């Protein structure tokens, strides 16, 4: 699914990380942990093609990507439902897929609301629903549970794990919470270990 070898990245000649290695098998879910600023989110952006590395190789074996950014990044002029529709490439089963994704993140009653009418946690859940509707075979999840309360955090992380397992999708979860990592991932990876 993903093979990273000896990857290095710098912002304005200031190295973020060097010589990074990571392999992700199809259907595998890993949790990436490490101190703030170590480059976890940067790695996700490199995988998504939003940044490009100058050194190392990044072999991508996926065809479709679903990305939950650290911020919700919803289109403010679209309702929750329209935000989900925006990432669909075909209208086939659109209504069912959207309803299912909203049900999974417990936002079924908020489909017609605009982002500014949602709380911070609801926005992130809408962003998660958008990623689910897109049906990517690789999910990049940048702290998606951080703004959720404990009960919802547990419920949604378990539901997401089940759903990705059912679909056979791979995932990289960036988190600071060991409990989230243990609940969601097959393997926990410490960012510093990737550099060895």
């Amino acid at each position, binding site marked *: 699914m993903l093979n990273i070898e000896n990857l290095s990245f710098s912002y304005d000649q200031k190295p973020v990380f060097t010589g990074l290695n990571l392999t992700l098998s199809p259907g595998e879910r890993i949790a990436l942990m490490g101190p703030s600023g170590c480059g976890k989110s940067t790695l996700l952006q490199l995988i*998504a*093609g*939003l940044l490009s590395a100058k050194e190392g190789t990044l072999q991508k074996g996926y065809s479709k*990507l679903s*990305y939950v*950014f650290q*911020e919700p*990044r919803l*289109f*403010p*002029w*679209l*309702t929750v439902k329209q935000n989900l529709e*925006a*990432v669909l*490439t075909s209208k086939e089963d659109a209504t069912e897929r959207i309803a299912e994704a909203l049900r999974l993140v417990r936002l079924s009653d908020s489909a017609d609301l*605009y982002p*500014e*009418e949602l709380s911070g946690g609801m926005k992130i859940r809408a962003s998660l629903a*958008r990623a689910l509707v*897109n049906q990517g075979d690789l999910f990049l999840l940048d702290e998606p549970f951080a703004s959720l309360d404990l009960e919802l955090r547990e419920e949604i992380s378990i539901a997401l794990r089940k759903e990705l397992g059912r679909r056979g999708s791979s995932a990289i979860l960036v988190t600071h919470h060991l409990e989230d990592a243990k609940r969601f991932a097959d393997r926990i990876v410490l960012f510093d270990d990737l550099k060895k």
Partner: protein
Amino acid sequence: MKYAKKIGQTLLIALFWLSVWHIAAWRVGKPALLPTPWAVLVRLVELMQTAAFYKTTLTSLWNILLGILLAVLAGCVLSMLTACSAVARRLFFPVMSVIKATPVASFIILALIWIGSARVPTFITILIVLPVLWTNLDTGFTSMDPKLGEVAKVYRFSFWKRIRLLILPSLKPYFVSACRTSLGLAWKAGVAAEIIAMPRNTIGAMIGDAKQYIQTADMFAWTITVILLSLVIEFVFAALFDKATEKTGKKARVYAEH
């Protein structure tokens, strides 16, 4: 009740300023210098009873609306070009600055020499509206949220989907603001161009004639016509905009207004 109160207040304010005007005209005592509001109203009604009034009004309306339309089209194309190319932006930026800084009267005289009187009002309207449109849309393009652009990239939006869901909604508030500012400016500059260039059957030419023969009531009547036309156009535009945003929802309108 609230609506009736608002109308009542507006009427009272209008009555106050009409009284000030009337007292000033009465004190001056020379209709050639300052006619009374009543005399201007009588003259306006007289003018409105002639076919020439409507022909004149429609000609000016056409000249200015055509200028606005062409400037909007040119402004959209130009801003897209300058958003896509840094070279184009560097190339056109000084041109727009020069157009904005040049006195309208200089352009009117030059246009009169270059293209003849009939097309001057439209040309001047374009010159006035274009920099406003371009500046606003350029700001819209540069302040577009790059994070939403990344969402479009990750989720592989097609070119048209990117235009429809990202670029047009991002630019809408800037476009609307530019149009609202331009409408008033277009009327002022367009009629000024008509007064200097004196093309046939235009409001500006009528004001010019009235000045020539010191028919001050006529000048006031035509000026009031321009003000009313400008207000009506602005009202129609606002109504069209509200209707368009209603389709995309209440919150979208709120977003656009900020």
